């Protein structure tokens, strides 16, 4: 029996499409760049350039695909939560839990294939379109660009596989559904079980500790040689992996902290509680944004610090302006590339808030019956969205600031001649853009759910099935 509903899977297909489009277009774009460089006789080894460009592209594609997979796992687990009764009924009449879970994973595979295929077409169309227009305009040379490199299989197959795996991970809850939930008064599950996570948390802690130690070592080594930054990079990667792995511990705390800032009104307090109600769900909802904001902030802070230092050292000298423009351009390109992952994460947040409102109809009806005005309800949902976004952005800012400074410190401590402390610089534009982005995500994420929530009639919501 197949319960595949396209409507239910639109957000997951969208996420897979975005990841695949991004991967395909980026690889085709870097390939075109390599073709242009090869055509330009001044460069020698063009094959090496092509490999280097593709490698950098693959890193960004991996980030986007990972974020997409986290979002999809979350979407699936939320969908499963909403299907509990149906699954229980099927279990009651004899379906096995494993069989049910495999069916969900098959849906994931279908979602992945559809998304990857659409993405491959859209990505190719985008690259061809941009190259065509740019060639006509004379910005890039008119060359024989290839759109069918074997490496393109990496993002396409990668998206299919990660979506499939994500649906498998997200469907774990199927195993916990008891046939009894189909009959009798089944109470809504109040919280995800957070047990059996000790091993994972311990691994996360070890990674963070080793990573931070290496970062410290990198900073110390940086006082002797700029090569210290290489130790720091390893430390940064390890510690950030630890943070992502242990997000389950970190994000609920951050959400509580932000929740307190929301204020003491009934809607704010309920919103604060709702955001941490399913810690696993909220963590997966926010971690994608944390990853994006951390990386963008890291590049921006490192770039800003770099620039401030060079401005001081090279003020008035020739080439200062060019160096500055190059740094700006690099930071901007990296930010846009990572911004794509953040966009995927934002899709996840919008989707999660809608689904959670849909699954809370009865509770919203109760609140309306007890005297919550439509306005208070809207305020509550917007506050929930704001809390999720703000917590993610704040954690990302703190982490990114730290990583950006650590990188700059280990690389640039010797720039002035003697070992010194590098003052971190936070570009104001970064803060402005992040706050604006967070506000946009919050508003967009809250519109549809709050409209739906205020349309809930208390009478229908409370009607006993």
């Amino acid at each position, binding site marked *: 029996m197949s319960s595949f509903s396209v409507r239910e899977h639109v957000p997951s297909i969208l996420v897979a499409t975005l990841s695949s489009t991004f991967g395909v277009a980026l690889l085709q774009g870097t390939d075109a760049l390599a073709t242009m460089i090869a055509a330009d006789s001044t460069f020698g080894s063009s094959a090496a350039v092509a490999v280097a460009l593709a490698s950098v592209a693959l890193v960004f594609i991996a980030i986007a695909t990972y974020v997409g997979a986290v979002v999809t796992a979350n979407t699936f687990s939320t969908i499963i939560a909403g299907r509990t009764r149906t699954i229980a009924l099927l279990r009651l009449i004899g379906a096995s839990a494993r069989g049910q879970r495999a069916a969900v994973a098959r849906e994931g595979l279908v979602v992945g294939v559809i998304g990857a295929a659409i993405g491959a077409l859209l990505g190719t169309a985008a690259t061809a379109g941009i190259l065509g227009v740019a060639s006509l305009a004379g910005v890039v040379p008119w060359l024989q660009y290839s759109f069918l490199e074997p490496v393109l299989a990496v993002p396409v197959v990668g998206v299919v596989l990660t979506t499939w795996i994500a649906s498998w991970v997200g469907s774990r809850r199927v195993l916990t559904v008891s046939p009894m939930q189909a009959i009798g*008064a089944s109470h809504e599950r*109040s919280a995800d079980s957070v047990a059996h996570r000790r091993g994972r948390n311990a691994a996360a802690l070890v990674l963070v500790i080793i990573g931070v130690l290496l970062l410290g070592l990198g900073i110390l080594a940086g006082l002797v040689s700029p090569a210290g930054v290489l130790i720091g990079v390893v430390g940064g990667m390890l510690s950030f992996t630890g943070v992502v792995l242990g997000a389950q511990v970190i994000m609920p705390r951050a959400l509580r902290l932000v929740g307190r800032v929301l204020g003491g009104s009934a809607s704010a307090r309920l919103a604060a*509680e709702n955001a941490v*109600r399913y810690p696993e769900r909220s963590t997966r909802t926010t971690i994608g944004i944390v990853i994006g904001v951390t990386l963008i902030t890291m590049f921006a802070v490192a770039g800003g610090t770099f620039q401030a230092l060079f401005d001081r050292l090279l003020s008035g000298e020739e080439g200062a302006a060019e160096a500055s423009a190059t740094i700006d351009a690099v930071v901007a390109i990296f930010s846009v590339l990572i911004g794509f992952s953040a966009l995927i994460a934002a899709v996840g947040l919008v989707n999660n808030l809608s689904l959670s409102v849909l699954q809370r109809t009865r509770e919203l009806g*109760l609140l309306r019956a007890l005297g919550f*005005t*439509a306005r208070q309800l809207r305020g509550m949902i917007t506050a929930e969205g704001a809390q999720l976004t703000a917590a993610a952005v704040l954690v990302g800012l703190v982490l990114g600031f730290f990583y950006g400074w650590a990188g700059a410190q280990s690389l640039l401590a010797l720039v002035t001649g003697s070992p010194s402390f590098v003052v971190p610089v936070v570009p104001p534009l970064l803060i402005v853009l992040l706050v604006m982005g967070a506000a946009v995500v919050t508003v967009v994420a809250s519109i549809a759910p709050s409209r739906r929530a205020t349309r809930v009639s208390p009478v229908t919501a*409370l009607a006993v099935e």
Partner: protein
Amino acid sequence: MEITTSDLGLVARVAQLSKSYGSGATEVTALRDVSIGIRKGEFTAIMGPSGSGKSTLMHIMAGLDTPTSGRVWIGNTDISGLGDTELTMIRRRRVGFVFQAFNLVPTLDIEGNILLPFELDGRRPSPQERAWIDELVDSLGLRDRLRHRPHELSGGQQQRVAIARALGSRPELVFADEPTGNLDSRTGREVLSLLASATRSAGQSIAMVTHDPVAASYADRILFLADGAVVEDRGRSSAAEISSFMLEMEQAV
């Protein structure tokens, strides 16, 4: 000058109330020309088989639904023409609710649920209200449960919390919708005794919708509904008397 609801010794009333859903061939009439009053300080049961319109009547009297025609008063306020926000304020400040299930907000602890009507109003209970809530918490045996979440409580305990919340703000009228529908019979009787004693000792007016003759036997007055109309209005009766009247009603159809 018009006679007000309170002049009649009533806490709520409806006059020539009709309610229908849908239109044309699919039109369903839930209530036809109902005129009744709920007396102040009484425990009133609204009885009837399913489909008799008793739930619709309660929803309209409580400002959860709007009438198709006729008028509805809570106290001396005519609520038949009010908009969503005004009705919300009526529900928040002047009536209390005990539903059959899903009465409590799962993310709030027991105390938070009891104080929710005050929270929604953006105020703290006055010292007198505080003392009353403390009294309720003790008499309902919830004192050592205040920090628990609803899912940690049994069904009967959850209904006690709902009762504490409904009585806490001393509303003009408490609506109870099949409050024992999800409970075993012993727990159900406890809940009914609690409601009856709220009327006897605190003068709380209560309107309870039920189809269970045993539940209705706890009430001071019983209104019988059938096919959207009131067919009988009688005083305190035993479960057996109520059952046999219900059977007669069935046979008369």
